[in-house]
């Protein structure tokens, strides 16, 4: 089975960990993220008729206290850039992280997951923003860790992108 290293990027508290929790296998506790700065999880899915094992590096969200360890991104086959749809700044932060990753490791298949889609009333990211991101070549997916909506699809989509590369 093909294996792919996927890194989850994004600001803290955007729900990266919640996003994957229901869909992955893990043998490590959440404590790893705050100590080592990363937690490894595993997700096997079928993308385009092929079984793929995604090894998800759920990185501690960059914030004022902890810088993202770029070394964790080395060798990644894809990035899932996660932001919080109810906090516009998290998108900018996520994109900034992605940019620094790209600077370091070059162009790597990536996908944006705009999380918390269940909180439509508090939504801050405009359709226009989404459109312009699409025009820039981004694949976007609204997700909800709470309802599970879009999560599987986001991983599927990213897996396809990594295979198409």
């Amino acid at each position, binding site marked *: 089975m093909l*294996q792919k290293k996927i890194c989850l990027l994004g600001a803290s508290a955007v729900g990266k960990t919640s996003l994957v929790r229901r869909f992955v296998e893990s043998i490590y506790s959440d404590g790893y993220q705050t100590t080592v700065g990363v937690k490894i999880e595993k997700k096997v899915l079928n993308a385009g008729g092929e079984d793929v094992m995604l090894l998800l*590096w759920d990185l501690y969200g960059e914030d004022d206290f902890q810088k993202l360890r770029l070394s964790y991104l080395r060798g990644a086959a894809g990035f899932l850039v996660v932001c919080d749809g109810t906090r516009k700044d998290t998108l900018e932060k996520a994109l900034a992280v992605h940019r620094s990753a790209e600077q370091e490791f070059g162009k790597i298949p990536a996908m944006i997951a705009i999380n918390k889609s269940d909180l439509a009333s508090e939504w801050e990211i405009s359709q226009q923003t989404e459109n312009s991101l699409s025009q820039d070549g981004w694949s976007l997916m609204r997700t909800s860790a709470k309802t599970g909506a879009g999560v599987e699809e986001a991983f599927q989509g990213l897996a396809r992108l990594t295979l198409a590369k």
Partner: protein
Amino acid sequence: MAEQPARQVPSGKEEDAVEIDARALAELHELRELLFHAERSELIALRERLHNPRLRAKDVSEILAEAIRLRRGKGGRQALSEALAPSVEEALRESVRKDPRILADALFPSMGPAIRRAIGEALRSMTQSFDLAMEHSFSLQGLKWRFESIRTGRKFADVVLLHSLLFRVEQLFLIHKKTGLMLVHVVAPFVPVQDPDMVSAMLTAIQDFVRDSFKAPAGETLESMQVGELQVCVEQGPSASLAAVIRGQAPPEVRLRMQEKLEEAHQLFGQQLEDFQGDAAPFQELVPSLSDCFAAHYKERGGKPTPFFQIATAVLLLVGLLWATLTWRENRKWNRFATELRAQPGILITSFAKSGGRFHIRGLRDPLAVNPEVLLMKDNLDANLADFEWRQYQALDPVLVLKRANAILEPPAAATLALQNGVLYARGEAPRRWQETFRERAPFVAGVKAADISGLTNTDHSEFSVLKKSLESTTILFPVGVAEIPADRKVELDKLARDIREVVARAKALGDTVSLELVGHADDTGTDAHNILLSDRRARAMRAELVRRGIARNLIRTRGAGYNEPLRNEDSEDERKFNRSITLRVISAKTQ
């Protein structure tokens, strides 16, 4: 042959044209013949070669091996293998179908050793685990480990193996360095594992974390981690790293071994490692080579016991065995003694116990019952080990009643006692006096209800007669012409006086009175008158002696018989001396 039809072209305009064409053709043909004769025959030969399968096969056969070599060299190994695989498989199947032996024989040299090795390895590991389990089954340590086995739910043998392990490589991870993806994971038998894919990634993350956190110079990495008994050693290669999970303390050779394996992986898969896109399948080829690292090394078994220790143990064992046997035998003897004692009439045991190596026996005992100490001696038991505590009582067991009767009634030698249904029978002969005693006292003996003397005969008469006869056979001899009792016969006279008194008493008991007649004798030398006188004096002297010994004078008559009643014929001096004597006669009043 082609010229023939050209010449037979029909006449007429049309026919002329045909003829010209035919001529032209013939000329062309001729020209061609002239120009290309050699090439033509070559062409024909070539065509022949192309269309003749036999020749073509011959051609291919000449270049086939070279062609395959070329194809492999040009990086077409995969394609060639793919092309050949179905046919080779088919051929193998066909071969096995036709005659399985051929393939089996061909494979035998390589499969035999491999199978032997696998079986040997399995047996060795099984024996080792069994040995260890046996060795530790009965020790204190073993108990501790058994408890641990129950607590953790692991098999006892596994727990033993874990603790006796010096070191063992339990898991190996070949990890793609850049992505942290797992290429190969091998695990020793019976080792519980977590998801190796995630572990590989996390190991890589930790490497990165440590390097970043401590600003390690490039090229320096975390080489080992220690968690309790577990050690994780990591060897770095250009494109892959090899992490080993080792239980116990691994010697430096293990690292060398790991480096060799890592080098081997780079040698064989250098390009694949660089181009790695997530497909770890090709690297599975490394599994057998990596599995070689799984040698477990166990602690030495605490050295061989010294001969002294062995001998001491053996002696102790023997002594213990001997002691146990002796104690068992001794106890058995004492128990048998107790049983024997219980069966004795007149003995009632109320308690029999052993404490402090001594035997305490309590109970009731008839004084006439067997002496327990005698029984002890008979059974070869040490009487000093026995503490008896008896209370006395009178037993009514017939044996003891009889014994008691004998002790109290003291029957004369010619009489015996017997007990039947509480009646004491006296049988045999006994004096009247004893019979009286028996009749009076027997019923008072405990256990006797009645006395019976019907089987008893009186012995007093016979005793009297015996005594009388004994007295009458007494002869006192005198020297020639002497009437005084010689001094050396005086002792004899004392006994005679006692017997006389006895015979008088017995006669009285029989309701009779007796008297004695002392008859004096003389030999035939001298005159009759002298002899009568002498013999009379001899009888009187005797009487005087008896009277002096307390016999009533009126009981004794004397008479001098002279030579008139000789005891012997005087054929010799020896016989004559018997006639110089006194004889004694007991005269009963009843018989007179």
